[in-house]
């Protein structure tokens, strides 16, 4: 259960890391190859978050209805459907699968 004290510590840590990243890098200090490496970081992070939120539960690998939802999302992306349709259909597919299972 969250407390006010914990909340303040969490906020300080989260904002501190964002601020550190925001103030520690500048285009003047970075050379070409490192700018390209930085540009790939969102790709790596997005892929990691998708994998973890789809295939793990409380730190352990687990396959369940979420896989169906994310597969549906990928199908919608492949068909180039709007982003709102992607997330809505993914939720509906997951909910339907849970209902069936």
């Amino acid at each position: 259960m969250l407390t006010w004290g914990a909340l303040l510590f969490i906020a300080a840590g989260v904002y501190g890391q964002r601020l550190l990243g925001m103030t520690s890098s500048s285009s003047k200090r970075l050379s070409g190859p490192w700018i390209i490496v930085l540009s790939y970081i969102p790709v790596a992070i997005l892929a990691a978050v998708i994998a973890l939120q789809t295939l793990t539960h409380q730190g352990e690998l687990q396959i369940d209805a979420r896989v169906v939802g994310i597969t549906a999302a990928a199908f919608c992306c492949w068909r180039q459907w709007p982003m709102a349709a992607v997330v809505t259909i993914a939720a509906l597919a997951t909910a339907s699968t849970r209902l069936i299972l």
Partner: protein
Amino acid sequence: MQQLPTGTQLVRGEAWAIGLTYFTVAITVSIVHRTAGTDPWLIVAAALIVNSATATLAFASATASGGSAVTGVLSSWIVSTRFGLLAATIAPRLWSSRKKRLFAAYSCFDPNVALALREEEDSNLRRVYVSLSLWLIIPWWVGSVVGVFVGNIISNPLALGLDVMFPALFVALLWRQLDHGLSKLVGLAGAAVALGTVEFVPGGLPILLAAFTALLGLRKKNTPPNELH
């Protein structure tokens, strides 16, 4: 909420999708905290001050499984390391003013960074970043408040598949960046590293380790991912 920056690649559907997702995720997060017995005002304050779903959920998860408050706080910090990396990624193209970066840091999330980085011109990148930050944060705050009040009505957000909206949004964001082999390689490697380490290292670290796969970008120095510069 009606304004989108003109002359950029950002389209209305993307902004709405992000707003919808963060509104829904905020409701879900509020329900999780309400179920854990957290004071409603504290839930709303967490949304405003921490501005991160994963951080407060990591705390709730760690303490619910028997961990101390210190463990919970450390867990929340670890899962937030990606925000620092994302901030470092976009910072070179944002304002040089430190004061403006103080504000920009507050709203550093995955979607606004990913979509802003598509812009070729730095001025457009800044406009998209600011606009999407509003499209993301306002639904997030409103959803948190709504979640506090409807928590008793929607007792099981999992039954509605709400937990999948967040990764589904990320799939949509990632999809348009996987346009060439190296992007796909980095994405696959990032996912593999995260899944391969999740059972052996504390929560949050798998994402940090996955970020190192961006070093594969050094293999082809002239091919940044599509729409990322």
